[in-house]
């Protein structure tokens, strides 16, 4: 509990430091925009449209030409029913607070940061007793009993960027701490720490800036599953993916540790006027993550290499009438390759020496999307505005486990449309948004030889395949109101979305947020 309180204190400190810096320094720079205009711009689709190019801390210097801080208290409930990966549970609820700040210290330097806290509860999680599923999957520790998982996350990030002539440089550092647990057998207790640093540089060449960045990340998760009931323990399994588990270490190897390091680099280009012209970024990263059995002398059981390749090209143009047009092409490719370590003859508590390695599961996820944008913000005397974002995405997902001749190959095409209407009544800014789309499965092929369908792990796999290969449509609405009081703008928003699956029923998502922007 003491550690948790310390993290809360640190989180709050970071948030307030950002706020105070803005009060004492940021206001020395003349912000020409009024508070309602800042609110309007920050909430616009165009601001974040260029996407990943902003991850370079040097280029982030140019994110907004004004100082701002936002504080949001938010709550989300996602009732997924059968339309979910079993490892992520069928219901997800969280409440949290997020603070983001971007401060113009002087004409040539910026500081920025964020901090947050989130409390989360997932229900009916099966075959996953870990935290950070998306990071360690499929190499989780799991069992057929599962249940709810309660957890908390704290994070803070801070950065600084400086411009000197044609050159810009920036640094960021961040830390996230998460834990989750269940106070009923089986009782997992997971703690994760995630440390990241990024350094970037930019150089102005004509009307464009070229940026490069390098990121480093160190991740660690400690997990232990205990059984306190008089009935004793049940089996836990070290999942290998596609219904397989590491049979030799099944049973009561309940202590595990994940350790990983990630390197990432990016090259990007951004127009000197960030609101006009073409931007592009390509980034590539690799994370090497080991799963160790802490209850067996930290024996390295599995290795997971995740390679990411992302790129996008976006074009934005704002006309003199205030119409912003944009087009974005985006591609993302992620491949996760597992390696299973094979050990020799066991003796006592020793599992012998590493005799060989075997290639494990390979999961390749690729997406290519095209997105358009039209937006017109309320500005000055104009009391209305609107935005439309059409999107088309091709998605291909392939899981291959060649050593056991199993595979699942999926492909899909989706199309969506988001439309937003802005309206200003005196000082009250209102935004109403509607969205809808359809995700059409194009192909779903799988072969799972040797799968014993009477087993819980097999049933979970088949349920996941049904979910992932399903076609669905969705529709949603979002309403937001902003009202300025002195130097602060209060906001309140509600969001609802329903997703209607062909086979997996209906999933409902609801969120609300109360925020302050200044």
């Amino acid at each position, binding site marked *: 509990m003491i550690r948790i309180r310390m993290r809360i204190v640190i989180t709050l400190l970071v948030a307030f430091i950002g706020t105070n810096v803005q009060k004492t320094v940021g206001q020395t720079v003349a912000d020409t925009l009024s508070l309602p205009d800042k609110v309007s711009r920050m909430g616009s689709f165009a601001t974040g449209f260029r996407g990943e190019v902003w991850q370079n801390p040097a280029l982030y210097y140019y994110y907004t030409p004004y100082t701002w801080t936002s504080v949001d208290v938010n709550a989300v409930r996602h009732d997924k029913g059968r339309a979910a990966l079993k490892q992520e549970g069928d219901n997800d609820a969280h409440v949290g607070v997020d603070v983001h700040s971007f401060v113009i210290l002087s004409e040539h330097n910026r500081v920025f940061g964020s901090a947050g806290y989130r409390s989360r509860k997932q229900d009916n999680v099966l075959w996953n007793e870990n935290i950070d599923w998306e990071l360690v999957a499929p190499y989780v520790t799991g069992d057929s009993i599962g249940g709810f998982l309660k957890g908390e996350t704290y994070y803070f990030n801070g950065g600084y960027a400086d411009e000197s002539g044609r050159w810009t440089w920036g640094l960021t550092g961040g830390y996230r701490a998460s834990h989750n647990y269940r106070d009923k057998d089986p009782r997992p207790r997971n703690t994760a720490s995630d440390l990241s640093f990024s350094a970037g540089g930019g150089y102005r060449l004509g009307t464009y800036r070229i940026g490069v960045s390098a990121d480093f990340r160190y991740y660690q998760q400690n997990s232990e599953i205990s059984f306190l009931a008089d009935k004793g323990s049940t*089996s836990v399994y070290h999942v290998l993916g596609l219904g397989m588990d590491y049979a030799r*270490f099944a*049973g009561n190897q309940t202590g595990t540790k994940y350790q990983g390091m990630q390197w990432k680099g990016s090259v990007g280009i951004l127009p000197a006027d960030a609101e006009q012209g073409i931007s592009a970024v390509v980034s590539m990263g690799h994370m090497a993550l080991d799963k160790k059995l802490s209850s067996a002398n930290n024996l390295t059981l599995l290795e997971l290499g995740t390679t990411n390749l992302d790129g996008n090209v976006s074009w934005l143009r704002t006309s003199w009438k205030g119409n912003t047009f944009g087009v974005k092409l985006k591609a993302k490719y992620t491949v996760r390759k597992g390696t299973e370590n094979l050990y020799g003859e066991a003796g006592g508590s020793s599992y012998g020496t590493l005799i060989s390695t075997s290639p494990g599961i390979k999961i390749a996820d690729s997406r290519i999307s095209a997105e358009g944008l039209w937006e017109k913000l309320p500005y000055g005397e104009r009391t209305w505005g609107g935005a439309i974002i059409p999107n088309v995405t091709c998605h291909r997902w392939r899981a291959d486990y060649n050593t056991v001749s199993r595979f699942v190959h999926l492909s899909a095409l989706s199309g969506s449309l988001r439309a937003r209407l802005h309206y200003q009544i005196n000082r009250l800014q209102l935004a109403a948004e509607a969205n809808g789309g359809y995700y059409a499965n194009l192909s779903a092929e799988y072969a799972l030889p040797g799968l014993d369908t009477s087993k819980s792990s097999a049933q979970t796999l088949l349920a996941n395949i049904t979910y992932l290969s399903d076609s669905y449509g969705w529709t949603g609405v979002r309403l937001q109101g902003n009202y300025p009081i002195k130097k602060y703008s209060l906001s309140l928003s509600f969001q609802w979305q329903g997703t209607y699956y062909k086979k997996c029923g209906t999933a409902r998502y609801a969120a609300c947020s109360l925020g302050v922007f200044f």
Partner: protein
Amino acid sequence: MKKNQLALAVLFAAALGFSACSDDEGVSMSDVSISATVNTTIEGLQITSGTYTFENVNTSAKTDVSYPTSLIQLADGLYNVTFIGKGTYSQNGTSVEVNVQGVQQNVTVSGGSCKLDLTAHVVNTGDADFVIAEIFLPGTYNEAGKQYNGDQYVRIYNNSDTVLYADGLVFMESQFTTTQKYQSVDPDIMNEAIAVGSVVVVPGNGTDYPVQPGESFIICDNAINHKEANPNSIDLSNANFEWYIESKQDVDNPAVPNMDIYYCYTKTIWILNKQGNRAYAIGRLPEGMTKEQYIADYTYDYTYVLQSGTVSKPQSKYKFPNEWVIDAVNIGATNEWQWNVTATELDMGHTYIGVNNTVAENIGKCVMRKVAYTDNDREVLQDTNNSTVDFTPAATPSLFAE
């Protein structure tokens, strides 16, 4: 500026192209040369057919190879190899066929090539005798959901077609566990005898306790009606024998004959290994061997070396020669099993209460010998000296099924 945009476009295209690349790695394979020879006194015995089964310890996947294949390619890993086959020899000019079996545990396949010379044995050619039909070890839950001890039992079955006498039958539990293999044991007597931690004997003068063909008898710790204390348990008040250690802790039912305790590692209550990670055996002392003589002459003084290299203090237990053994069963959960603690000729395999050594899944389960065939109304149980194939693991105990 156009050059910049062109360069970026090229970079972007290259990135997309990367996603189409395939860089699959293959599984490391090794050539394994295999051979099998029979360890027997029968002259001229030759293996004629059979199947090698390679069970991958890491994945439990099995690969079958037909005899007489001598070279195969196998994915690198750790394997337990079993051979089940047939052999023939000539007796007075007539060809006689026998079953042969062999096992080699923890065979490392790696490094491109390796060699496996497997020793097989002729399967049970002697007269049918008593066999261990059932061993119930984990106990039960009481009504409060807590583990209940004392209702363990062993069922011993007359597998012959004649009346056998239980008098003098020895029941024993191994000293070593199947889940902890030592680097070495000095002296290593496994090919001569079983190292035992408990030896108890059915009383009688030789003909006091007849057992009819196809009938069995029950031995247990506490021959009482356990249902009175725990409705989830069983009534063992009709058991045939119990082992009672004179102590404040143990319970004696005077109505049920006590087994003669030759040696027991504990002076309080002997509870059979609940986790199911030891071997159990039955046997007979040779003609004229007395309890006193056995106790005097069959101590086993030894030391062992842990995998860490630590040498144990001198230990003193007992040994039971292999030639006196009638039947032996090695038990060990698959996830923790490391070795058999009896000679291969006694038991070439092992069975288990549960695949994993986890209490909640294993409680209330037993190992049960399979029925090989029925001779009129008499069930003949399978006894090939390979408990992997002779037993049904994780079975429902017969006394619970009643």
